[in-house]
Every structure is written in structure tokens, then in C-alpha cells.
């Protein structure tokens, strides 16, 4: 059992445990903090797959920007004295059951695929995930989607400002 396998199992267990903690915590602040741990575990997986650019971007964008935005919004709201609605235990039960059934279907489908045993994942080698190669591809082959995504960002920014504005 080499170090890569150990790191893989550790990161997988960490990601799954933290994901379960995200959906079971009562306090939304703790959910946000556990979700940050999930994102760090997924970034570790990216590093294991030698996709360093995506690992860094995942930490900066998700754990750095998006989660801070979530925390900011949560702390702006006063969640202490919210009206408590009646909790339907059957809805929770059915939600968990349907999630588990979806997992069973996905796993059994992937297990029954014919050439699944012939494929393997190359760990810790290959240079397609380095920033040099990805930058070349991004600015030559995918230059048009890159520019379109900047327009998307502009419209999202304008939309957030327009929606968040107080109506007088």
C-alpha cells in the first residue's frame, strides 16, 4: 500500500464524512465550515491527479470566494429568531431513501459497464493539468467561450446589484 493509495482513501473518507456533516448540522454556519473542508479534500484529489491549476482555482474560487459569500450572507441575516415550522420527519426519511436509491442505481450501472475493468486512472503523472498546457488550450481553442463567460460574469454582476437593490 503506497502513499498514493493511503492519501486517496484518507481524502475520500474526509470528503464523504464532511459532506454528511454538511447536511446534518442544525446551524448553517457549521454547514458552511464543513463544506469548506469538503472543498479542500476535493482539491487534494485534484493534486493527486496532477491537476494543479484546478486544485488552486478550486481553493481560491470555492473555498475562498463562494464560501465567504455564503458566510457573509448568513451573518447578515438574523437566523436566531426565525419562526419554526413543523418538521415533517417522513419527508426527511423519504429524501434520504431517494438519495440512497439514486446512489445504488449509479453504482450498479457503473459496475455493470463492460469495459470498466480495463480502464485505470493515472495518478501523479502527466502534464495536461499544468497551467502552461491549460492556458494554451484556453486561449486558442476555447477563446470564444472564455470571452462569452466574461459577458456572463458582467451580466451576473449587474443582476446581483439590481436584485439586491432596495426598492424605495
Amino acid at each position, binding site marked *: 500500500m503506497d502513499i498514493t493509495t493511503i492519501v486517496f482513501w484518507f481524502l475520500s473518507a474526509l470528503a464523504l464524512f464532511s459532506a454528511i456533516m454538511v447536511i446534518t448540522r442544525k446551524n448553517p454556519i457549521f454547514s458552511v465550515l464543513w463544506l469548506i473542508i469538503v472543498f479542500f479534500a*476535493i482539491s487534494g484529489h485534484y493534486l493527486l491527479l496532477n491537476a494543479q491549476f484546478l486544485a488552486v482555482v478550486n481553493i481560491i474560487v470555492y473555498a475562498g470566494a463562494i464560501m465567504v459569500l455564503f458566510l457573509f*450572507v448568513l451573518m447578515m441575516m438574523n437566523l436566531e429568531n426565525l419562526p419554526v415550522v413543523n418538521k415533517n420527519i417522513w419527508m426527511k426519511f423519504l429524501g434520504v431513501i431517494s438519495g440512497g436509491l439514486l446512489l445504488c442505481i449509479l453504482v450498479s450501472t457503473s459496475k455493470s459497464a463492460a469495459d*470498466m475493468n480495463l480502464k485505470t*486512472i493515472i495518478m501523479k503523472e502527466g502534464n495536461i493539468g499544468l497551467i502552461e498546457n491549460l492556458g494554451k488550450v484556453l486561449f486558442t481553442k476555447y477563446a470564444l467561450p472564455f470571452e462569452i463567460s466574461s459577458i456572463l460574469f458582467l451580466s451576473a454582476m449587474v443582476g446581483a446589484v439590481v436584485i439586491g437593490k432596495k426598492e424605495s
Partner: protein
Amino acid sequence: MPVSYYIILASALFCIGVAGVLTRRNAIIVFMCIELMLNAVNLLLVAFSKMQNIATPPGSVSVGGSDAQIFVFFIMVVAAAEVSVGLAIIVMMYRNVHSIDINFLNRLKN
């Protein structure tokens, strides 16, 4: 590492996200579960970009596969835009209804 390990891991993360969306009533947590599902898909895309046949000799490194990682990059871009607009909508709903419970939000009119 066999590819089925990554498929099972990403499927498990995705299904935890689905179960969270179905069980939690807090709009922000529902939103976070959607982010979790997006990340599961990203992980699977990166894993598939490094996939190759067992029969291939280990010395030959494949050159393809950067398309998948560019795709993950664009998914992150769209997720960031989505989060900014979605959180603005949630803040506005909290300002109007004084709650972020999605049971109260089933009637969007008045």
C-alpha cells in the same frame, strides 16, 4: 487507481447533495448542496481526463484530456456567477418574507 473508485466516490458525493436538497428546508443549505453536487461532477470530470487503458504501456503519457479540465474551469465560472445571483435573490426574499425557509416560499406572488 481503478476508475470505478472515482465513480463511486463522485456518485456518493452527488447523492449526499441530492439527499441534502430533499431533506433540508433552509434555502442557503439547499444552495450549498447544489454546490456540493457541482463539485462531485467536477471531480469525476478531472478523473476521466486522466483515464487510459490498462494495456497502454506506462511510459507513454497521453496528451489528450485537457478539454475536460477546461470544462471544469467553465463549470466553476458558471457556479460563481450563479452563486452571486442566487444569494442576491435569497437576501431579497429574506428582506420581504423575513425567513429563508423554503416552505414559506411556495407562493412567490405577494
